[in-house]
């Protein structure tokens, strides 16, 4: 199961890392100075979680003698994984890589992602893999704060002015289709679930809706109409298999530029 566990760690770690990278773009341009602090804080939590998850994944890969193509062997660290993989090797969901858009889009992404991460980490606290369980125990508390922050803003914007209501509804409508991917099952999730390593994501969706729907209702926002099955609506996916949007490779070009320009250097 080492291989499957590694893959799970990459999914979780890449979600956190790419979310952090997008949140980091808000620093010094947030709508309030308090929000500069808050978004940087959430970004910091996500980088922290990403480091724990990717370090663990790197250790497992090192043991297995695997490494990203661009690294060409050797010890795989958190930085090897963050800086020396191409977009086709990243395993994050599409939602986190989408551009920030306006503040409403960022907040919609924050609400949907943090509710999912909160539930997933909650589940993983009981993972049969103890180290992962430990990481989850730390991360779930942070996710709870992120979820609270996202919730407060969705309500404020949804139930604020006509303009903020319009923007928040548009953001929810735009991001909603990307939430389906969070709960998609595949061979890996099935095997992980059987082994007790990680949650079958599909089982989290009801709990997720139970968090998200009341927030939208309180915010006087319409919950987008969709069926859950892809056939019933647009459910873009592919991130878990390394099939991303055109946005990710730009994000990585920027994120990795310095590290890659100085091969082998220490920082």
């Amino acid at each position, binding site marked *: 199961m080492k291989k499957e566990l590694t893959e799970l760690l990459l999914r979780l770690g890449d979600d956190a*890392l790419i979310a*952090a*990278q997008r949140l*980091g*773009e808000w*620093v*010094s*341009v*947030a*709508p*309030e*100075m*308090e*929000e*500069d*602090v808050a978004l*940087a*804080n959430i*970004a*910091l939590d996500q*980088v*922290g979680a*990403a*480091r724990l998850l*990717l370090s663990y994944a790197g250790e497992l890969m090192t043991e297995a003698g695997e490494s990203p193509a661009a690294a060409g062997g050797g010890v795989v660290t*958190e*930085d090897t994984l*963050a*800086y020396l993989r191409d977009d086709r090797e990243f395993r994050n969901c599409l939602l986190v890589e989408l551009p920030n858009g*306006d*503040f409403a889009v960022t907040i919609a992404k924050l609400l949907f992602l943090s509710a999912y991460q909160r539930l997933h980490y909650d589940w993983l606290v009981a993972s049969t893999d103890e180290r992962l369980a430990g990481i989850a125990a730390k991360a779930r508390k942070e996710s709870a704060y992120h979820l609270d922050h996202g919730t407060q803003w969705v*309500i*404020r*914007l949804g*139930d*604020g*002015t006509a*303009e*903020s209501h319009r*923007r928040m509804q548009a953001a929810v409508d735009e991001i909603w289709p990307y939430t389906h991917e969070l709960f998609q099952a595949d061979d890996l999730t099935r095997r992980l679930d059987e082994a007790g390593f990680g949650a079958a994501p599909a089982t989290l969706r009801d709990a997720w809706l139970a968090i998200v729907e009341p927030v939208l209702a309180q915010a006087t926002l319409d919950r987008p109409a969709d069926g859950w099955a892809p056939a019933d609506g647009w459910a873009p996916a592919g991130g878990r298999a390394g099939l991303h949007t055109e946005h990710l490779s730009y994000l990585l070009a*920027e*994120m990795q*530029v*310095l*590290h890659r320009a*100085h091969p*082998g*250097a*220490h*920082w």
Partner: protein
Amino acid sequence: SDLQEYFDAVIGADQKIEPRDWMPDSYRKTLIRQIAQHAHSEIIGMQPEGNWISRAPSLKRKAILLAKVQDEAGHGLYLYAAAETLGVTRDELVDLLFEGRQKYSSIFNYPTLTWADVGAIGWLVDGAAIVNQVPLCRCSYGPYARAMIRVCKEESFHQRQGYEILHTLSHGTPAQKAMAQDAIDRWWYPSLAMFGPPDADSTHSAQSMAWKIKRFSNDELRQRFVDMCVQQAEILGLGLPDPELRWNEQRQAHDFTQPDYTELMRVISGDGPCNRQRMDHRRRAHAEGAWVREAAAAYAAKQAARAEVAA
């Protein structure tokens, strides 16, 4: 008058003036100007370093830099709060900044061209800030002094991190070492200029010293900073770009070349490399966030009204 006498006595006894105390108008104005400029500097200062968050070369450095820039936003917030104890609002101060009637530290009008600049800002710019600010922890105005204690503690942490970045670079590959030296070459004189014009040309200094807002002259602080840096640069194995820099046995201090004060004046008056960019950036963030702040206010008002109905 009695009030003035009491004020003078407090200052004389090295006690703190508090918001409820009477104070001369000019003392109040001087403090507002200085604290606001300091707060603005923290907020504008997020930009040059924020420029490298997305490109930090390791996840550890990314985390440290995010935390640092977050600290700066935090410093800005409690410095604005300190200024508000003097009877102005943060919004008023931000407007004064936008109208160009208040300044921020001119050091932030230089661009961060490479990762090493993040190190140089930490080591030199935060270093200079600390030398400037440590005496302010004993400033006669209580809220400012207390804010500065917290700020200085965090700044010295930042300075150490910047030093560590440079240390790693200077002991890294030749390209890394060259990057570090290049950054120091560009940031050295602007950092010296952070202490302001020479004492002879300094307009506000004498009164500020009398009020114990300021404790040392610009030149004294500048000298202290130079002496501190020379030692540290040696350990870094990097040079300071001043051929005249040498120990003066008689003065027990380093002789050094003064920064170009004409350039300083030009940058202060708006013609530095990034003045327009920094202000445009801040104005755009403020303008684009307007609908969010309005929404938050509208929601708060609705909640208050609902609470009233419910009560």
